[in-house]
C-alpha cells in the first residue's frame, strides 16, 4: 500500500487533489481511498487530505500517520504545521515553491533522504499561467506522478476530465503536462549530473 498525505490551505483544492489522485489510481485498475481530514474547512485554514493506493481492497480507515509521500501545497505551512510528521525515511516530498529545499531552510531536515525523491514545483505559477487561478493542486499531482512513477500522466489527465469540464479541464490538463515535463526534466538532469 502506498499512502499520500496532502497539506494545504482551504481554497487550494487539497481535498479535490486527494480525490483526483484516487480517480487516477482507479483508472489504472488499482484500489484507492481518498478522504479529507474532516476539519471545519475555511478559506486559508490548514487542511489535510489523504489517499491510499493498493492492489487489493483497502479496509483501513485511520488517518495516514506514516506517509510514503507528502505533497505540500503551501510552503507557508512549513512554519505552522508539522507537515513532515511520520514521513518514511525514503518518502517523497513535493513542495509548491520556486525555491530549493535549501532556500526554504530545509537542508538539515532532508539530509540523508534520497535526492531523487525530493522535488519542488512552482505549481501556483503554472496554475496562474494555465488555469488563470492560483490552484496548485493539479500541477502538484502531475509532479507527483512524474517523481514517483506511481501514476501515468495520462491517468492524471483522465482524473482532471472526470472532475472538471470545458476550459477549466483544458487549462488544468495543460498545467499538469507542464508540471510533469518540468519534473521529468529535472530528474533527468539530476541523473546525468
Amino acid at each position: 500500500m502506498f499512502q499520500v498525505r496532502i497539506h494545504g490551505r482551504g481554497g487550494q483544492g487539497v481535498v479535490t487533489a486527494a480525490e483526483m489522485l484516487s480517480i487516477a489510481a482507479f483508472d489504472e485498475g488499482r484500489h484507492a481511498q481518498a478522504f479529507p481530514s474532516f476539519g471545519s474547512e475555511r478559506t486559508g485554514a490548514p487542511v489535510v487530505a489523504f489517499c491510499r493506493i493498493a492492489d487489493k481492497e483497502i479496509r483501513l480507515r485511520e488517518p495516514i500517520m506514516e506517509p510514503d509521500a507528502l505533497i505540500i501545497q503551501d510552503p507557508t505551512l512549513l512554519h505552522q504545521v508539522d507537515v513532515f510528521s511520520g514521513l518514511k525515511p525514503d518518502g517523497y516530498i513535493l513542495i509548491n515553491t520556486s525555491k530549493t529545499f535549501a532556500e526554504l531552510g530545509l537542508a538539515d531536515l532532508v539530509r540523508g533522504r534520497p535526492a531523487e525523491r525530493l522535488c519542488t514545483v512552482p505549481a501556483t505559477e503554472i496554475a496562474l499561467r494555465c488555469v488563470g487561478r492560483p490552484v496548485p493542486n493539479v500541477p502538484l499531482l502531475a509532479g507527483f506522478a512524474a517523481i514517483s512513477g506511481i501514476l501515468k500522466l495520462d491517468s492524471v489527465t483522465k482524473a482532471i476530465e472526470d472532475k472538471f469540464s470545458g476550459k477549466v479541464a483544458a487549462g488544468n490538463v495543460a498545467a499538469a503536462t507542464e508540471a510533469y515535463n518540468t519534473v521529468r526534466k529535472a530528474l533527468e538532469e539530476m541523473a546525468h549530473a
Partner: protein
Amino acid sequence: MLKQMEGSRAVAEAVALCRPEVVCAYPISPQTHIVEAVGEMVKDGSLSPCEFINVESEFAAMSVAIGSSATGARTYTATASQGLLFMAEAVYNASGLGLPIVMTVANRAIGAPINIWNDHSDALSQRDSGWLQIFAETNQEALDLHIQAFRLAEELSLPIMVCMDGFILTHAYERVDMPTQEQVDAYLPKYEPRQVLDPADPVSIGAMVGPEAFMEVRYLAHAKQMEALKLIPAYAAEFKAVFGRDSGGLVHTYKADDADTIVVAMGSVLGTIKDVVDEMREAGHKIGVLGITLFRPFPITQVRAALQGAKRVVVLEKSMAIGLGGILAVNVRMALSALPIDVYTVVAGLGGRAITMRSLHALFRKAEKDDIDPITFLDLNRAVVDKQLERERATRRSGPAAEAILRDIGVVAAKLA
C-alpha cells in the same frame, strides 16, 4: 459498473435508482452531499417523477416524509446528529404509524460540546424508536443497503435508518459497483402500501388509542420488527442473485470460528479491526471479529451463535450510555446471558477521535490477557480529565469544562483574552 466516487454521491445514485417519489430534507453535515446530489438529479430530470421538497427544519423533513408516505409515495430523507434529535418526535410517529420511510443517518456525534465528526450517538439515541437500523461497513455496502432498505421497509410497512459513518464513509472516495436501473427494478417491486390516504377510498390514520388497546398496537410494532430477522437473510440472498455480491444480512463473522477473543463492532471501523486481526493472526493470536450489520431488531440468536465459542468478547463501540457504559455492549451481553464469557466494553472514536491500528493492537493484546477494565475508554487522555476534576474540587466556580480542557491541551478556546 465500477466507479471511483464519493460515498455520498454513491448513496444518492443508489437512492435515485430506487425511484423515490418524494425526497424532503434539511441540510446538516455530514449528510448534506447526499441530498444535494439527489436534488440535482431531480432538477436535471434524471430522477423523475420525483418531488424534492426543501423544508425549514428536520422536524419538518420528517413531518413531510410522514405525510407523503401516508399518501402512498415512496419517500426518502437523510439527516445526522442534532438533526435527528430535532425530528425525534416525528421519528417515533413514522414508525408508530407504520410508514416505510427510508432515511440515511450520516452518523455524527451529539453536542454539547458541539462536534461535527463521526460517532454513533445519533442513531443509537433512537434505537428504541421502532425504526429498523442497519449499519454499513463500506460505501459499497451503504449503497447496497439502501436498495435493500426500500424493499424491506415497504414489505414490513416500517421505516428504516441506513446508518453510515459521517465523513469516514460519506466523504471518502472509493471504488463502488453501481448497479443498473434494470437490476434495481428487478429487485425492488413497485410499492404497494398497506394504508393510503386516498379521497376515493377514505381512511383516517393516527387514531387516539387508550389503555384498552395501546399495548396491543405497540406489541404489534415489536412483532413486526422481529419479522425482519427472517426477511433480511432472504432479501440478502436475493440481492446476491441479482447483483452478484454479498451485502447486508444480520451479522458477519471474520476469522471467528476458532477464536478465543472476538471483537464486536459496527460500521466502518470493522475494516481497521480486520487489518489488525490479520496481523495478529499471522503472529499466532486466536482472534476474530463479529460485525453487526442489523442493530434493530437486534439479532440475538445470531450474535449468541457467533460468540458462544469465544473465551472473551471485546465490544468496541462509537457510543456510550452515560451512567452505565456501552450501548452495543449491553445488547451483546443480553445475547450472551448465562454463558461464561467475559464481555469487555470499549468506548472508542467519540466525536471523530481516530481509531488507529496501533491503539487496537495494544488494546486487543491486553484484552487477550484479561488485563483491561470492564469499561475502557480507548486513548482517553487521563491527565486532562484529572486536571479538570481537580480544578472542580478546588474551585466552586470552575467555569465551563469544555473550554478549560481545550485550554489545557493548547487548542484556542472560546475564551479570547
